[in-house]
C-alpha cells in the first residue's frame, strides 16, 4: 500500500498546485499558460490511478476504505504541514511522484 | 422603548423554542412516518424493507431540522413537518390496511 499512499499524495499535491494562488506561493513564479489545467488533469489521473491500484492490491472493500483513509491523511499532512515545512513537503511530493510508480511496479 | 424591546425578545425566544420543538418532535414524527412508508412500499423482503426504511429515516429527520430553522416563521416550521407527516400517515394507513386486511 506504500505505493498507493505515495501516488495519492503526489496527486493531491498536483491538485493543490493547480490552483493559481498556491502555485504562486509554493513555486514562487507565475504558471505558464496551460500549466494549471495540466496539473489538474495530472492530479485527478493520479488519484484515479491510485484508487485502481488500491482495489487491485487489497480487493474492493479494503482497497476503497484504505484509499479514502490515505487521501484524508495525505490532505491533512499537506495542509497542516505546509505553513511550517513547505520545502520538505514539496520534496516529499517529488519523491512520491518518482518512487510511487517504482514501488507499484514492484508490487509493494 | 425598553418594554417593547423586551417584548420582542420574549416573542423571539418563544418562536425559537417553538421551532426547536417542531424540529425535535415534528421532525421525529416525519422521520418515523417516512421510514414506515418506505418499509411498507418498497418491494423487498420484510427485513430488507425495514432496514432500508430505518436507514433512510434519518435523512428526513435531518431535512426536517433544516426546514424548521430555515423557514420564515415558526408556524411554517410546524406546518412544514406536520402536513407531510399527515400525508405519509394516510398512505401508511392505506398500505398497512392493504397488507393486513
Amino acid at each position: 500500500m506504500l505505493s498507493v499512499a505515495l501516488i495519492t499524495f503526489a496527486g493531491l499535491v498536483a491538485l493543490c498546485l493547480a490552483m493559481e494562488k498556491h502555485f504562486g506561493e509554493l513555486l514562487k513564479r507565475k504558471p505558464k499558460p496551460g500549466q494549471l489545467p495540466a496539473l489538474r488533469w495530472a492530479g485527478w489521473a493520479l488519484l484515479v490511478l491510485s484508487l485502481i491500484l488500491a482495489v487491485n492490491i487489497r480487493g474492493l472493500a479494503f482497497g476503497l476504505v484504505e484509499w479514502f483513509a490515505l487521501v484524508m491523511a495525505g490532505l491533512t499532512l499537506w495542509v497542516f504541514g505546509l505553513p511550517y515545512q513547505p520545502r520538505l513537503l514539496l520534496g516529499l511530493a517529488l519523491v512520491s511522484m518518482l518512487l510511487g510508480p517504482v514501488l507499484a511496479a514492484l508490487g509493494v | 422603548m425598553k418594554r417593547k424591546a423586551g417584548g420582542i425578545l420574549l416573542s423571539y425566544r418563544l418562536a425559537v423554542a417553538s421551532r426547536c420543538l417542531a424540529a425535535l418532535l415534528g421532525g421525529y414524527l416525519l422521520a418515523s412516518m417516512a421510514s414506515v412508508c418506505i418499509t411498507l412500499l418498497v418491494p423487498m423482503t420484510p427485513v430488507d424493507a425495514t432496514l432500508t426504511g430505518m436507514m433512510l429515516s434519518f435523512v428526513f429527520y435531518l431535512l426536517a431540522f433544516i426546514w424548521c430553522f430555515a423557514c420564515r416563521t415558526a408556524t411554517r416550521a410546524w406546518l412544514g413537518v406536520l402536513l407531510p407527516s399527515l400525508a405519509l400517515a394516510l398512505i401508511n394507513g392505506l398500505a398497512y390496511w392493504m397488507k393486513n386486511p
Partner: protein
Amino acid sequence: MKEGFRQAMAWLHTWTGLLFGWLLFAIFLTGTLSYFKDEITHWSQPEVQRHQLDPAASLGLAKRYLQSNAATAGSWFIRLPSDREPALSVSWRDPNATGRRGFISHELDARSGERVEVRDSRGGDFFYRFHFQLQMPHPWGRWLATFCALIMLLGLVTGIITHKKIFKEFFTFRPGKGQRSWLDGHNAIGVLVLPFHLMISYSSLLLFMYMVMPASIMAAYKGDSDSYFSELFGRDDAPKAAGVAAPLTDLPALYAKVQTIVPGARIGYLQIANPGDSNAQVTVTQAAADHVAYQRSANWTFDGVSGALLSQGEPESAAMMTSFTIAGLHMGNFAGPWLRWLYFVFGVAGTAVIGTGLVMWLGKRQLKHAKSGRLPFELRLVEVLNIASMSGLLLGVAGFFWANRLLPVGMQGRADWEINVFFLAWALSPLHALLRPGRKAWGEQLALGALAFAGLPLLNALVTGHGLDQSIARGDWAMAGFDLTALGTGLFLAWAAGKMLRTPNVQAKRAPRAAKAASTTAEVN
C-alpha cells in the same frame, strides 16, 4: 429571525454546536480511545502475557480448562487470542445461578492454558461503553448519544452550507493569526476529513436505529423485534440437551476444517452448546478483523460429537450488506496497525473540530469584553464548561490510568474505583476553572494533564515490569505504543499549556521556545 438560508444555517450550526459540543467532545474523545480498546485493556491488565498466536493449540487448552472447571455448564464460549488481544478468554453459564451473575469469564494464558489472575479493571471497555452509554442508566445514555450523533451530522451539513469558500480555501491553513487561524483550522479539519466525519456520525445513528426509530419494525413485524432480529442475523436456537453423555469433538480439528473452507481465516470465537451431551453443537465464527462489513454468513456450525459440518450462516442481502458495511466502518475492527492509527488520527480530528468550534464561539464574543477584562455571567459559564469538557476530561482520562497503576491490586471494587477517580478528576476541573481566570485555568489544567500523561510511562515502569525498555525488548508493541502515545500526549499538552500561560501578545513569537521548555519539564517530571 434570519435573512437568507445561509445565515439561518450558520445560526443553527453555532447554537447546536455550543449546546451539544461539550458532550460531543467527550463522546468523540472516548470513542477515539475505543479504537485502541484492546490495547488499552492490555495496558490496564499487564498480567496477561503476549505469545505467538497458535489457534489450534489455544482451542485444545481452552477445552481442557473448561472440561475441568465447567463440565456441567450448559454452554461454553471461547474467544481466541488475536494480534490485539493476547488473552485466551473462556466463559460459561453457571448452571446453579440465574440472571447476569451466572455468567463466569476467565482469562487464560495463551501458552500454558492456566488462568491468569488479572487486576480488576474495565480497561478500554470503560471508554468504549462510555462513548455510547455516557454512564447513564439504560436506555437513556444510548438515546442521548444517538441524538448527539444526529446533531453532529446536522453540524456537518450546516457547516458545509455555511462555509462560503469550501473549494477556494480547500488547501488553506494560516497559523499565528488568532481567530482567523482557529476558523481556518476548524474548517480545514472539518472539510479534509469530511468522509470520516460523515461516516462516523451517520453510522452512529444506524447502530441504534432499531431502538431510536422502531416505527418500521412495528409496521413490518407488528412490534415483534425478536423476529426482526432473528431474520436479520439469521441465527437458529441451540438444540436442547438430550441428557445422554457423549464426548465433545476435537476442537482443533474443527479449526482445520474451517481453514479448508476459507483458507487463512482468522477465528474470533466459538460457542459450544451442550458440551459433553449427544446433542452438542459447536459454532465457529470468523474474526471481525477479516471483513470490513459485519458478516452474518461468516460462521459455521458443526455437530459437537461427530464434528460434521451442519450449516453455514445465511448470506446477506444488498440492504444488509449496506447496513453492515456502514456499521463495520464505524467499529473499524478490520483495521490493521497503520489503518487503526489513521482511524485514531481522524477521531482526534473530529474531536478537534468540536473543540475548536467551542473555543471560537467564546473567542468571538470575548473580544467585546477584552478591555474590561470581566466576562458577563453566560460567557463565563461557557468558559468554565469549555475548560471542564476539554482539559477536564483529559485529566479524568489520565486519572483513570493513574488509578489503574496505583490502586492496590487486591482492593474490593477496584474497577469501580478507577471509574470513580475518572469522574472525580473530571468533576474537580470545573471547580478549579471557577476559581481561576480563564487563561490561567486552561494553562494550569493542561500543564497538570501534561505531567499526568508524560508521567504514565514512568509510573508504568516503576510499579510493573512492563516499562518501555521491557516492552520494546519483548516486542510488546501494544504496551509500548500506549506508553509512547501517553508521552506524546503529554508533550502536546505541555506545548498547549505553554501557549496558554504566556501573555497573549508575545505568544506568537515566543511559543516555540516556551513549548520546548515546557516539554523538557514534562519529560523530567
